[in-house]
């Protein structure tokens, strides 16, 4: 039961509440230092303020965009295509990964092609997408789905393939139907690996959302906000875009981690 992870780091005998406050405070040290450095660099004219907008200008810009009602539609457009692409890619990825993991024949038939095509750098699909599907919403969503699809297939495959033979035998002893085998044994046994795939897929989908908006420019989105900022040489706008991108990414990740913790509560910790 004793492990390094379980041992309290150094807040020693503090109550859990205080300990978690200390943890948060420590995590904020670096961002605060960066903020101070950023502020000082602009104030002391170490850098050209045209290239590095001061933090307060970024905040002002956020307020302006919010008041003029520009920010929400842009953010909403990005999130919409992110979620749509993520959902498509994840569902497709779990389906293909599951089939490859469960069927030797499918693995032999489709596996090599899949493993070869996942070697293609994801952004290399952009030129094809734009020729085949244009630069509209469809091309973007398909590209995002593709970015989520590959890690999802890989992780689902590994999870399903790695289901212990011993558990499958228990299912045979109890004469489970194929559907019961999938629902009662394979899915739960593969869940940790599938969740790892969801984590990656979320990350790649958001990356691809920004990539698609940047490289298949057309229509609203956070990427579009940043392109506008760059073209107008409004660095506050660009910085605002960067901050929002990071915040959304972090938020999605936290969401996935929370869901995962709830779904996999049975897992042995501290091993």
């Amino acid at each position, binding site marked *: 039961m004793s492990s390094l992870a379980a041992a309290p780091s150094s807040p020693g005998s503090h109550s859990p509440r205080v300990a978690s406050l200390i943890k948060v405070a420590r995590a904020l040290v670096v961002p605060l230092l960066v903020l101070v450095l950023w502020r000082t660099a602009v104030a002391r004219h170490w850098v050209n303020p045209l290239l590095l907008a001061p933090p307060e200008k970024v905040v002002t810009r956020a307020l302006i965009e919010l008041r003029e009602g520009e920010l929400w539609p842009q953010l909403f457009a990005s999130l919409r295509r992110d979620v749509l692409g993520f959902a498509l890619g994840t569902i497709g990825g779990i389906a293909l990964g599951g089939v490859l993991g469960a069927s030797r024949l499918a693995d032999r038939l489709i596996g090599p092609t899949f493993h070869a095509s996942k070697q293609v750098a994801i952004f290399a699909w952009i030129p094809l997408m734009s020729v085949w599907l244009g630069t509209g919403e469809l091309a973007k969503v398909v590209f995002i789905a593709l970015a989520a699809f590959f890690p999802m297939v890989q992780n689902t495959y590994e999870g399903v393939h790695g289901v212990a033979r011993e*558990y499958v035998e228990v299912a*045979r002893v109890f004469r489970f139907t194929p559907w019961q085998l999938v629902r*009662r044994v394979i899915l739960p046994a593969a869940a940790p690996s599938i969740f790892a795939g969801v984590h990656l897929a979320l990350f790649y989908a958001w990356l691809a959302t920004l990539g698609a908006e940047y490289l298949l420019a057309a229509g609203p989105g956070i990427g579009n906000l940043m392109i506008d900022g760059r073209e107008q040489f409004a660095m506050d706008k660009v910085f605002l875009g960067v901050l929002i991108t990071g915040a959304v990414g972090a938020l999605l990740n936290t969401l996935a981690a929370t869901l995962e913790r709830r779904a996999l509560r049975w897992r042995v910790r501290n091993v």
Partner: protein
Amino acid sequence: MGQPGVIDIRGVSKQYVVNERALQVLTGLSLTIQPGEFLSIVGSSGCGKSTLLRLISGLDVDYSGEIRVDGQQVRGTSLDRGIVFQEHRLFPWLTIEKNIGLGLENSTWPAAKRRETIERHIDLVGLRGFEQAYPHQLSGGMAQRAAIARALVNQPSILLLDEPFGALDALTRSNLQQELQRIWQAERLTTILVTHDVEEAVFLGDRVVVMQPRPGRIRRVLNVSAEHPRDRADPELKAIVDEVRGEILEAPESSAN
């Protein structure tokens, strides 16, 4: 003989192909197990005793000869034959209660009867209070109790035990042997215990089958007539233990190991 649970094994042989060479694991094995009997199978490793149990369970149907349960040739697993493996094989993602309930997944009983049966088996193996625990929260002995409950919950007429206490410490092991004897007396179902622990085989079995390896076959079958519940200190049991041990040590190939 109206009671179900007769197992008839006739001329059973089994071979594995390893590196394109046939390896004979069992050869010409014949044995009849009576309803309600407790049969122990003991032998050194490699004598094919676990393989035989897998054939009876129906997990492996690639053999020659005949295995009949209540007159029916075994062609696959059956809810009528419960099995406990050396590892507990509880599903780590289910609570103990849900794990035990797995045996009723395909039952046509109404929900109330299922609940009640699960409860009864939790009590039977002494796990009251641990229904909501996950397997990793239990000790090895408790997990094995849960595995026994899972095998019994749908009320099979035959219970197969594949070295169920082999991975437990000596104290827990003798404790669970006692428990198994009590459960067997309460349920009276045909039981086959595969083990390499001679005392365990003699303490529990009505008959003890001694197997010898390469190829796996029956060397001798001994009767243990002492009444259940038994006393470990019984000199009759001790004498049989010595006899069985002698048989195993005399078996030609195992002494060469």
